[in-house]
């Protein structure tokens, strides 16, 4: 068990390292360099050249990647914060500490000051959505899997297929047309400002609904599939034949076994939720992680994109690890080596 977790943690660190290097080298191809992006469009070429020299941006890729890793792990000080440069970049945490993601060239703030509040907003959005998706799809999945081929099952199946087929931006447009334009019940933006016009809850409703609609169908179908499979097992037949009430058969015998497979599926849903979050946040102007990622990637803000990549990969990989460990606990037949 400990070996398994250690192995996975090692893979996780490796994945994050590979991912960050991949993104770092990809960002090489964006037009402009850190110096010109930091100084903005009004700086003279001479100023840019000076900064370019001071930051040693002419060094080979590996050296600069190593330097970025050094800044991140707190081994070396962030060169951009050097008072000699006269950039007035100041991180209240100091220029040398563990977890220093550097300075964002787009937001002109320390990455840590932008990243975490944005991530917090996204966690609220995704958390609420997740909190609705899971119970909803469990209930409907189990109900339709209980009696395969019933009208409820058929109906839910096709609803599920339809819902997973409608991309977030399409469902957002349709919902906005109905609830914002036609009925005027909800706001079309969720920028988390002007709470006097629209309450927090009313701003959150549409983004959460869009996320729930897209993921609900998929998870519910997974639960259904697993439930259908369990219902054909001999021990269910035995339980029914020995005269147990149907309720008991479902709750005590079928449910526990049916929920094993969907457990991993639900946790694997989290990386998909990240994609949905990027789209949803962009549509509704929600000040979250996804919108920030898109903005900084199109600006070519390398420090920000690197930080966002590491965080996203960390979330994705750690939920997978959690999924595998949880899977092992709820399914005693599985043992990892």
């Amino acid at each position, binding site marked *: 068990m400990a070996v398994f977790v250690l192995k996975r943690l090692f*893979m996780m660190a*490796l*994945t994050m390292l*590979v*991912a960050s290097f991949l*993104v770092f080298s*990809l*960002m090489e*191809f*964006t037009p402009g360099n850190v110096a010109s992006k930091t100084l903005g469009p009004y700086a003279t070429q001479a100023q840019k050249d000076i900064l370019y020299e001071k930051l040693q941006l002419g060094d080979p890729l590996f050296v600069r990647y190593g330097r970025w890793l050094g800044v991140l792990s707190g081994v070396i000080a962030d060169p951009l914060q050097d008072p000699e440069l006269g950039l007035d970049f100041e991180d209240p945490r100091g220029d040398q500490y563990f977890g220093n993601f550097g300075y964002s060239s787009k937001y002109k703030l320390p990455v840590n000051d932008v990243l975490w509040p944005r991530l917090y907003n996204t966690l609220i959005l995704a958390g609420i959505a997740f909190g609705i998706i899971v119970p909803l799809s469990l209930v409907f999945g189990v109900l339709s899997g209980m009696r395969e081929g019933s009208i409820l099952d058929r109906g839910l*199946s*096709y609803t599920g*297929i*339809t819902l*997973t*087929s*409608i*991309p*977030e*931006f*399409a*469902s957002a*447009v*349709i919902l*906005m*047309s109905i609830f*914002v*334009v036609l009925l005027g019940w909800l706001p*079309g933006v969720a920028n988390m400002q002007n709470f006097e016009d629209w309450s927090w809850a009313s701003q959150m409703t549409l983004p959460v609904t869009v996320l729930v609609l897209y993921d609900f169908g998929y998870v519910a179908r997974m639960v259904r599939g697993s439930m259908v499979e369990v219902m054909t097992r001999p021990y269910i037949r035995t339980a029914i034949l020995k005269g147990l009430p149907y309720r008991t058969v479902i709750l005590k015998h079928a449910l526990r076994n049916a929920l094993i497979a969907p457990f*991993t599926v639900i946790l694997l849903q989290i*990386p998909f939720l*990240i*994609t949905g979050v*990027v*789209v949803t946040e*962009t*549509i509704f102007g929600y000040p979250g992680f*996804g919108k920030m*990622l*898109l903005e900084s*990637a*199109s600006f*070519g803000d390398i420090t920000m*994109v690197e930080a*966002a*990549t590491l965080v*996203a*990969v960390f*979330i*994705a*990989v750690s939920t*997978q690890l959690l999924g*595998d460990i949880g*899977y092992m606990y709820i399914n005693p037949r*599985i*043992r*990892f080596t």
Partner: protein
Amino acid sequence: MTDKTKEHAEMTETPTQQIGNPSAAGDSMINAEQPDRQGLTKLFYNFGLLRESPAAIIGLSIIVFWVLIAIFADLVTVYPPNVPDYEAFMKEPFMGAHWLGTDILGRDIWSRVAFGARTTLIVAPVAMLCAYTLGIIMGMLAGYYGGWVDNVISRVSDIILSFPLIILFIVIISVFGASAFNIIVAVTLAASPGIGRIVRGLTLDLRSLEYVSAAQIRGENGFYIMMVELLPNARGPLIVDACLRMGYTIITIGILGFLGLGLPPPDPDWGGMVANNIAMVNGGKPFMAIIPAVAISSLVIGFNLLADGLREISVRD
């Protein structure tokens, strides 16, 4: 991990071979004598099996509809897709000359939807073809040879699969610019590890069968065995997977277009059309964004219904 992949392989393995195998599926009355169907007859027979699933028929009809629109886009439209009509800005649908209305720039929405179908139905299949080629090669090599080849391929796949794909897409496309080629590269990179994993599982199951051993004893090389013995017998689950994946690829292309990372303007793509016109939803003219949104959703529904129907038919007996 291994246990889980194995289980996954088992789950996907059930429908194996039945799609292309009339004796296993289908009408027992007709099949009483197990006639030997080959070539075109077999194709038509398998096609006839679709009748058993209304979902598959509906899905297929939607797909065929859009394919026809895409092929004959020049014939079914009156106005060119990229040229503004200066006398008709933001016209409502079903009124006047433009039957689905015009967008912010006065371009005919029906023309843009039709030509958007063409772009989508070219880019998505090409991307899928590339992803499948790469994925099948990776999965076959990993599954057939095992050992270190399997280890290397599986670890690389694990890393790519644990990457939240949207980040990969955003970075690749914002760095290299938006073009059909870059979208295809991004989709191929992102989708092939998943395909590889499925093919690997199928190959592991098939590898130990007699006809593979027979080919090995006959002295056939690995390439021949993989392409001629293994691949055709793994096609059943792969066809279902391809339908599902096609739906998701279309969604992905739509999302990229919506985020401004799709095809460069002014050429129409559905996601981009939604993005261009979404501002007007709050301005009281939602139809301009709804029409392309409905178009993309219907095409994806078509592929998902077809996939569901195919799976239903293949596991029935």
